[in-house]
């Protein structure tokens, strides 16, 4: 057993864990943070994505002992204390960027991570930024729109730009889907896990 101390969604937890425990299992089974889900057994789908020390990681591909001393943010820690949704959550809601919702926690955290580094991504940059996250339902169109909206909402919040000056509208406002450029859509097919010897 190894003693680890991690802060999850603002609360510090000290636990003895087996070294082989995956971070996602520690979060779900020990700490009850079941908002983080497991979608595959091959580290491909990204459903289990959390922020570790500020960076998106696949929590099924991290040992809990590797997270010792870090701060973790899961989907359960994004909303404000008053229950107000994070701008990325709000944009996913407004844009209907989910169907079954299984990919959503990871997709939202991947988007939060991307926007922290690139506050104004192009559609191509959004698609590339979330390439580690697979969605089997939506076809990605509304996810990309939601990330675009969230980006302008976050930029607006930072520099207090008037909503009319940014691409898209503030979250929460009813809106018609924007004219979508007729670019060819690349729909990631679930990658075959790399065969191991």
């Amino acid at each position, binding site marked *: 057993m190894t003693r680890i101390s991690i802060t999850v969604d603002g609360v510090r937890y000290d636990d003895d864990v087996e070294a082989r425990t995956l971070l996602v299992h520690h979060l779900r089974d020990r700490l009850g943070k079941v908002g983080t889900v497991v979608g595959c057994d091959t580290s491909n789908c990204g459903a289990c994505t959390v922020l570790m020390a500020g960076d998106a990681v696949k929590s099924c591909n991290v040992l809990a002992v590797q997270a010792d001393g870090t701060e973790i943010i899961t989907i359960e820690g994004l909303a404000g204390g008053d229950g107000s949704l994070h701008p990325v959550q709000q944009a996913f809601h407004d844009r209907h960027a989910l169907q079954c919702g299984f990919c959503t926690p990871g997709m939202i955290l991947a988007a939060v991570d991307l926007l922290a580094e690139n506050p104004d991504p192009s559609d191509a940059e959004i698609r590339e930024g979330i*390439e580690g996250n697979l969605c089997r339902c939506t076809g990605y169109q509304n996810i990309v729109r939601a990330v675009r909206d969230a980006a302008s909402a976050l930029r607006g919040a930072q520099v207090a730009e008037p909503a009319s000056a940014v691409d898209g509208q503030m979250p929460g406002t009813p809106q018609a889907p924007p004219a979508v450029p007729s670019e060819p859509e690349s729909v990631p097919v679930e990658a075959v896990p790399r065969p191991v010897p």
Partner: protein
Amino acid sequence: MIPAAFEYTKPSTVDEAVRALAEGGEDARVLAGGQSLIPMLRLRMAAPTLLVDLGGLGELRGVRDDGDALVIGAMTRYADLLRDPLVRDHAPLLAQATATVADRQVRHLGTIGGSLAEADPAGDLPSVAVALDVSFEVVGPGGWRTISAADFFVDFLTTALGDGEMLGALRVPKQDGWGTHYEKFSRVAQAWSIVGVAVAVRRENGTIAEARVGLTSMGNRPLRARAVEEALAGAPATAEAVSSAAARAAEGADPPTDVWASAEYRSHLATVLTRRAVVAAGGIHAS
């Protein structure tokens, strides 16, 4: 699946790490970012008795300017490489190839040392390392020694690291004055390359003075396309000369046939991607 049980230690100096590896014996394994090792543990394709986590070794993380080369610590993560101004300015081929590896999540944890020590011929950085003749600084019970890129990659997932040795740093020659390009073909997002080609070209007046070409996924280890390099040396910097040199990209290679592609397809792809990569690296215009 859940990995089989193992012991775990997280040393805080290189000396401690070397000692822990020695004490752990042949079933001890180094843990870097875990992005290749943890999937193997979960599939129980690897079952070490001890993991020596290098995550606490700050001395092995970061990029340093050392005259005509950059010295990059083995524990420097992909994401660190992409943000590093020295890498951007002096090792653009490494930066470009790194940007194509996996996805943001994997790049936040995976390290340059792990990607090279894994020695996967489908990995993007091994072919860059052979193309640039990167030197591998390794440390073990006998102290430090240097292994050349040509000698480091021995076979599929097999390196020249001896018992109890680990990779400490990479010496990457600066590519000042060279044009470089990494051309990767993969079927879908976040997929491994079907073939990748890493190229560095030095031009003099109207000719190609020197070229280096590394191949990903074209054999049991990362390869140099020597026939192409020889054909390009001293050749005119024209599209025709590049095409005829690139046609020899698969000479001496032994590409695998797998679920993604046949060996024949890979050989063809290697010629096409090599042509594109040399054209881009050398700034060659269609004539």
